[in-house]
């Protein structure tokens, strides 16, 4: 096909509003954009003038899917700014809660958003009749993840009891034991998820890029840590701007990012590539079963990396519950600020990648805020993938090319309404 026009208005089965626009004339690719047409949401601007303890409640509303991730990064930014040191119990509860969100989001993405493409369907709904076991499994896994978050923070969207310095409610040991039992039982569902992915035929498209994720030496990192790149180098969180280098482009209300190359990738595949060694052995075995090893450079395999993380988070959640039960759950007052003015960066590797919140606080009031969202960091990389993909598949029908592009965008699990309010504020 020497002339091709693809114009997918509002890509389906993604969070938020994006259009794919591709134009090929006489065999030459003249346009290849992922347009972000979501309305601007201005979260950083509305945080100014707010009390420090309102920030996590406001910013969790950036995203219905990664609400716990936003709350976590927000609390860490505030705690860094005000010199708050959370207790070991708080740290363990936050990690456990975070696993609930990763499980919920990844299961949603794998089963409801990605799998229908590979099974030739427009949504998961027909599967309820044709493959009820698959749908029931997805629902069971999602329900467990949701119940885990509800036990720890009231509800997944939007968390209630997460607060600066700690929590305002605590799980009962019996609740944790019940969750542990269900997590152990969920191993069979994890295995079945890996089997499902083994049976899917992922497009054989590869493009090497830079992968960026949070990193710690002692664990597969989701909260805090440093910023690591597959191209080398580890930077402290405070230097995040040297990694994200945001720019504004006209066709996207979300900003683009670049680090050491033209673009970089964040998310499950980046975490897998960078932190593979710190995965739970069962998760490494799952990766082995999927033929996945670092570094994997096929972006469609992000869903496979997510499945590996589902195994990891299930296992690590069991370990965290054991630790919490061993310590005994105490009703702690949240750790108090040691100062009321300061500046801090908080980071979390949320389901879709590395998320930064950066606040400046004066006398307990937020005076400057910056949030850098994973999907924004991925946009430039998605476009470069699209550019690399299209010339190699021009011999296919328009319908096939469009589907391949939609599947590519979906593979990144974009969270568009999140990403449309990033900025690069100079704090004065």
């Amino acid at each position: 096909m020497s002339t091709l026009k693809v114009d997918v208005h509002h890509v389906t089965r993604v969070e938020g509003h994006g259009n794919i626009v591709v134009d090929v004339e006489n065999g030459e690719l003249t346009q290849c954009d992922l347009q972000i047409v979501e309305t601007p949401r201005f979260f950083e601007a509305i945080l100014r003038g707010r009390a420090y303890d309102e920030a996590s409640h406001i910013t969790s509303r950036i995203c219905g899917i990664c609400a716990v991730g936003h709350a976590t990064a927000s609390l860490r930014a505030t705690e860094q700014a005000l010199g708050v040191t959370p207790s070991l119990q708080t740290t363990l509860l936050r990690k456990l809660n975070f696993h609930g969100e990763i499980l919920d989001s990844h299961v949603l993405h794998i089963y409801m958003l990605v799998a229908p493409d590979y099974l030739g369907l427009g949504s998961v709904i027909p599967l309820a009749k044709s493959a009820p076991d698959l749908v029931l499994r997805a629902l069971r896994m999602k329900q467990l993840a949701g119940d885990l978050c509800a036990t720890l923070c009231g509800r997944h969207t939007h968390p209630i009891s997460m607060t600066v310095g700690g929590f305002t409610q605590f799980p009962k040991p019996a609740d944790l034991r019940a969750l542990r039992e269900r997590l152990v039982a969920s191993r069979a569902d994890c295995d079945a998820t890996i089997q499902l992915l083994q049976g899917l035929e992922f497009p054989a498209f590869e493009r090497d890029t830079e992968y960026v994720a949070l990193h710690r030496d002692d664990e597969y990192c989701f909260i805090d840590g440093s910023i690591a790149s597959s191209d080398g180098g580890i930077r402290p969180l405070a230097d995040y701007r040297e990694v994200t280098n945001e720019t504004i482009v006209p066709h996207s209300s979300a900003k683009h990012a670049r680090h050491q190359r033209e673009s970089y990738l964040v998310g499950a595949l980046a975490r897998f590539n960078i932190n593979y060694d710190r995965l739970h052995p069962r998760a490494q075995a799952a990766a082995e079963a999927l033929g996945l090893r670092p570094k994997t450079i096929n972006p469609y395999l992000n869903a496979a990396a997510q499945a590996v993380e589902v195994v990891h988070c299930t296992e690590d959640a069991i370990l965290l519950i054991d630790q919490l039960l061993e310590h005994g759950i105490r009703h702690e007052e949240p750790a108090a600020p040691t100062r009321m003015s300061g500046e801090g960066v908080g980071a979390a590797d949320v389901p879709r990648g590395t998320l930064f919140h950066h606040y400046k606080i004066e006398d307990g009031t937020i005076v400057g805020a910056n949030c850098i969202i994973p999907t924004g960091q991925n946009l430039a990389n998605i476009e470069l993938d699209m550019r690399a993909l299209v010339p190699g598949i021009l011999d296919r029908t328009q319908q096939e090319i469009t589907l391949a592009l939609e599947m590519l965008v979906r593979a990144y699990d974009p969270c568009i309404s999140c990403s449309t309010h990033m900025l690069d504020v100079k704090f004065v």
Partner: protein
Amino acid sequence: MKPKVAFFEFTSCEGCQLTVLDTLQRHPELLEVIEIVQFREAMTERSDDYQIAFIEGSCTRPSDEEKIREIRTQAQIVIAVGACAHLGGINAIRNRMPLDDVREYVYGDKKDWFETYPARPLSAVIKVDAVIPGCPIDRDEFAMAVTHLLQGRMPAIPDYPLCIECKLTENVCMFLRGQTCLGPITRAGCDAICPSCGQGCEGCRGLVPSPNLGSIKEALRERGMTEEQIDARLSLFLTYQTMQMDGVTPA
């Protein structure tokens, strides 16, 4: 015949639609009695032939008004889903600030590239037949709303304050715990989930009919809150409603 139902979203986090998906997962029997013909976040198939429209999100740019009116023209029943659609929600916080300053803070000298205007609830653009309040909506309340619609009546929501549910839940009053809460002026229906989790109500379900704002402000002052802090609390979800009560509606 099953009613044809469509879901739409404007400026929002899509958390309410995720709650809808969650509700449908927990109550798959709902899928037996309604036919979903459009739900962009969950399915590729779409049809514009529908009778009931559930809309999440605020209207925050002039160009969205036309789309919202189109939905109104097509649908026999339009339901506002969640605080953004019902109240303007978190989006309306910026209505208290100079819009140009807000735009410049986020997009700098590119601020005119992206269209926006003060956030407003759906009811400021079209007639809305019913609302499902909350940030996010409550699962059971959504299921109940669908049940009511199938029975041929509009979804009913409580017209009494949250304090009544909070008492029934046997929570100790947040004020007695030395904290603050907007329960006395906020519409019930969430089973007082925030006080049950140790947090004061933030008013996400909107004001109860005839709220006594003077009295709640007095109670918050007695708890040591400054006027600025009180304004901030009342503007988390209630900016549009309180500005409207003061006779201010955005252009």
